[in-house]
């Protein structure tokens, strides 16, 4: 009944958001797919779409986490009706005029409906306002481009101006090769923005999802006051393929997973998808000064 009421009274922005979230839910696996059964790419067993949806796209059979779309991620997190996408100052894409890149970009845009690999928004969690950024691995593997760096930086600066907590969900294959040095420099830009935000006393919760590697790991993703990770995610600086090739050795079992990072002291907590909202609410509450109205 409550859900129905929410649906009927939702604003146009909320309706669009919920629709996008539902359509893209498990990224490439379900995008525009009409099949009743979905197959897990890991264990190759099938389950109904209904069961996948109930398990938040964690395989009902083997427990493997499927990548999920950015809007869907936020829909799991935000209070109903609180989503508001930040408008972005558009910047020049393709700074190197890299051959074939412009075509690839427009193809990715058409395929995903996204304009870059980062979505930035504000919303409320348990009534508490936050700024959130989500890197979306469907778009160029969530790689760091000037556009991604700019969006993340704008989100950090917005949180700073509003004095709201900041949550960033990272998922990235590393640098956007086609943007060369401009991609590299985004690491400095985003890290500087986080440092500035932190010096002003802002709370930054960094949430690492599969996969977080390269320049994103070596910048804003590693700088959270609180570091969280999704179970079984690949997290590292150099990718496992590069390390294997360079050293010519087999890598240890479980190397560069969330659990490995937790064991080595780089993650506070591994948070199952089903506990995402609950954990965030707890953390935000713990950072709300006593007596302060939210």
């Amino acid at each position, binding site marked *: 009944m409550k859900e129905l009421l929410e649906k009927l009274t939702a604003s146009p922005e909320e309706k669009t958001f919920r629709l996008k979230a539902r359509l893209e839910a498990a990224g490439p696996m379900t995008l525009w797919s009409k099949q009743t059964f979905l197959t897990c790419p890991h264990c190759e067993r099938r389950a109904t779409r209904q069961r996948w949806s109930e398990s938040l796209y964690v395989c009902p059979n083997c427990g493997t986490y499927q990548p999920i779309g950015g809007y869907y991620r936020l829909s799991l997190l935000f209070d109903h009706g609180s989503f508001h996408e930040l408008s972005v100052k558009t*910047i020049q894409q393709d*700074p*190197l005029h*890299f*051959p074939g890149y412009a075509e690839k970009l427009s193809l990715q845009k058409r395929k995903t409906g996204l304009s870059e690999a980062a979505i930035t928004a504000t919303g409320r969690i348990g009534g508490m306002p936050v700024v959130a950024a989500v890197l979306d691995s469907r778009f160029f593997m969530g790689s760091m481009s*000037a556009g991604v*760096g*700019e969006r993340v*930086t704008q989100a950090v600066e917005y949180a700073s101006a509003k004095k709201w907590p900041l949550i960033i969900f990272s998922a990235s294959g590393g*640098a956007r*090769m*086609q*943007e*060369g*040095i*401009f*991609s*590299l*420099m*985004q*690491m*400095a*830009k985003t*890290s*500087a*923005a*986080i*440092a*500035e935000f*932190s*010096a002003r006393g802002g709370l930054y919760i960094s949430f690492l999802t599969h996969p977080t590697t*390269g*320049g994103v*790991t*070596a*910048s*804003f*993703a*590693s*700088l959270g006051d609180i570091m969280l990770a999704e179970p079984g995610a690949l997290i*590292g*600086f*150099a990718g496992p393929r*590069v*390390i294997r090739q*360079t*050293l010519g*050795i087999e*890598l*240890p079992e479980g*190397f*560069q997973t969330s659990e*490995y990072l937790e064991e*080595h*002291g*780089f993650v506070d907590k591994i948070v199952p998808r089903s506990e995402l909202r609950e954990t965030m609410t707890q953390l935000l509450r713990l950072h709300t000064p006593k007596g302060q109205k939210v």
Partner: protein
Amino acid sequence: MIQDRLRRLQALENEQQTLSGTPDEAQRRAEIAEERSALVAGCAELSSAERVFLARHPKRPKIEEYIEALFTDFFEQKGDRQCKEDASILGGIACYKGVPVTVLGHRKGANLADNMKYNFGMPGPEGYRKALRMMHQAEKFGRPVITFIDTPGAYPGVEAEARGQGEAIARNLAEMSRLTVPVISIVTGEGNSGGALAIGVANRILMLENAVYSVLSPEGFASILWKDASRHAEACDLMRLTAQDLYQAGIVDEIIPEPLGGAQLDKKALFSCVDIALEKNLSALRRQTRAALASGRYKKFREIGC
């Protein structure tokens, strides 16, 4: 190709040394001098792949030589105070024209034994944490920071990952951006990936004429984009990694000229060019207030790619 020219130059050099001062050899000497200047003149226009070759030349000046030539009273600082000493970063306190500064940079080593000892200039997290420790100290004592960048990249290893390579680089980027002392970075050889940038968040980025600075080595770039590392020459052109490209893109503030044919041919001339550029930029920065230095650095990186 520059490789052939340099080989021929070396051969001429060797021949000249065998010649004695007798008059009948005077003509040969003149010929050698003529061919030499023609060869050197031919090095004026270089392709980006040739610059990559020069940037990695084994005889290219190393950080020890820069410190020796430009600074006095160098006191080396070692260790990250947490885990170990990473020798692929060399740094410490020194005097530059009477002013105490913190100087640090990647150390590659001049021969194979040293290459191995210094891990070819590829730091692990301990190296970056050591660098950060030195920079924090520079902040405390109000010393300018001068960094020399020359690395194939951060080390991709199991231990490095276990001890947080990504976190170490990220922390450096964040902390460097807030330093309130002048920071100058000089890209002297190859600056690849986050491993270079981790000591490169500077107020001024200077770059030697034949140095290169990029998101990844051209080989790595080609292997990621085309799954074929042998296409690296093609990658060099597309990546826009030369000092000239980066100056045009507004990322590098000044190009330091090198002797024709590369820095390794006349180190003395090179050091005096570096000295002039360093002195000019440092004295300009030392006139700024501490707050202006930090906000200027923030703004510099904030505007890249906008």
